[in-house]
């Protein structure tokens, strides 16, 4: 049974690593059909917050509630709904693209495995000849496409992306941004951590800025590149 997440409530979340405070009382609400750009300098706490949202990092204080259909979604049902695209590819270098996705399809019990895999590989534009090559032979751009395919295959309703545009050329980054916008339009909650403001300009409708672990700015609206740049420089510094 699937329980799509339509709201994530982050309330007063704090995280410490030893004496280092990575997040301090962060409260934020994420809604279905929106793309939240989580911005801030290196070390601001963005990746930690993404880790907490992905359930792989435990907060020290505060609570994160994942709500779907009016009830709280937890455990395996919650993890089924989370798609993560991280700094690393999360794919096995010694497996081909198809084998990597077959593993994911098996672990997520995805019906129609083979056709779903081919469809998602077509969607991300991974060349047909490359699909049976080992992932370690891929360029950075191809690996990023495979990572996206991996995240999309499970049809997540909460998509977490950590610097998804790294290593992509301008055209690739803009195409990737368009793919994220399509996910948002399909009703997913998209959270993207990035420094590439151009790639998300005009697509993000929610901006949150972290500085030294604190949420210093949050606003909903549509922003062009200049507006995003201005907001970023005013609040992140």
């Amino acid at each position, binding site marked *: 049974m699937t329980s799509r997440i339509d709201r994530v409530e982050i309330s007063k979340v704090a995280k410490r690593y030893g004496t280092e405070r990575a997040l301090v009382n962060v409260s934020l609400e994420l809604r279905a059909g929106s793309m939240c750009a989580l911005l801030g300098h290196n070390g601001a706490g963005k990746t930690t917050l993404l880790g907490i949202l992905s*359930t792989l990092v435990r907060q020290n204080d505060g609570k994160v509630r994942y709500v779907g259909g009016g009830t709280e979604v937890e455990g395996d*049902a919650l993890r089924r709904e989370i798609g993560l695209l991280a700094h690393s590819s999360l794919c096995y270098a*010694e497996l081909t693209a198809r084998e990597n996705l077959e593993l994911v399809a098996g672990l997520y019990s995805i019906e129609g495995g083979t056709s779903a895999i081919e469809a998602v590989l077509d969607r991300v534009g991974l060349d047909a000849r490359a699909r049976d090559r080992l992932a370690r032979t891929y360029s950075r751009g191809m690996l990023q496409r495979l990572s996206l395919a991996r995240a999309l295959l499970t049809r997540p309703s909460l998509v977490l992306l950590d610097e998804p545009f790294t290593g992509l050329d301008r055209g690739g980054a803009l195409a990737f941004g368009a793919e994220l916008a399509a996910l948002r339009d399909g009703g997913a909650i998209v959270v993207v951590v990035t420094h590439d403001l151009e790639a998300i300009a005009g697509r993000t409708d929610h901006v949150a800025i972290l500085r030294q672990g604190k949420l210093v700015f949050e606003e909903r609206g549509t922003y062009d590149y200049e507006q995003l740049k201005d907001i970023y420089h005013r609040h992140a510094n």
Partner: protein
Amino acid sequence: MSTLSHAARIAWKDLRIELRSREIFYTMAFFGGLLAVVYSFVFPSNADMIKIAVPGMLWVSIAFAGTIGLSRAFDRERENDTMRALLLAPIPRLSVFLGKACSIAVLVLGVAVVVTPMLWLLLDVHLFDDPGVLILSLVLGSIGFALVGSVFSAALIKVRSRDVLLPVILYPLLIPLFVAGTSVTAGMLAGNQPKVWYWMGFLGVYDAVFLVVSLWIFESLVIE
């Protein structure tokens, strides 16, 4: 049932990668074999002394070669952060642990398959007189090693000095396993059946206890 089927999927993934690269097994087997060769040179060629020492040689070789395999098996999960992907999958996290432990047990057993005949050939000790006992003890020993090793390798996956820390944490916990393993082998060579089955039982209990403990603590150790 689904826990075991997902564990089998993860174990098969590991073994498929290993069958393709053969990197871990070759390293482990080469190191284990090398130890057997070194033993054959450094111990005096006194048949009685060799017979007493060979059980220790066998299990120390398995321990050292197995530790190399453990490190590399979890390095693979670290390289592209694939451990995160496994932990994020909507499957019981115990499946991840059991799958990794299973593939490591197979590799350790593979090393034993290489080292045991080498010790027999190089030192002329009749390790295969009771193959059933030998195989059972090596299987139980490999399982115990893999259970304990997988928990701590997974827990140390993000620790910078994990290569140093792993044996420091692991070996004290493995001492009972090696005592039991060497005792079974020594009992087998001496034809002492009560000793063999006492320590074989101990190996079984060790595996059962660490299976329960590992299943209990794995999740709390791998989530940051």
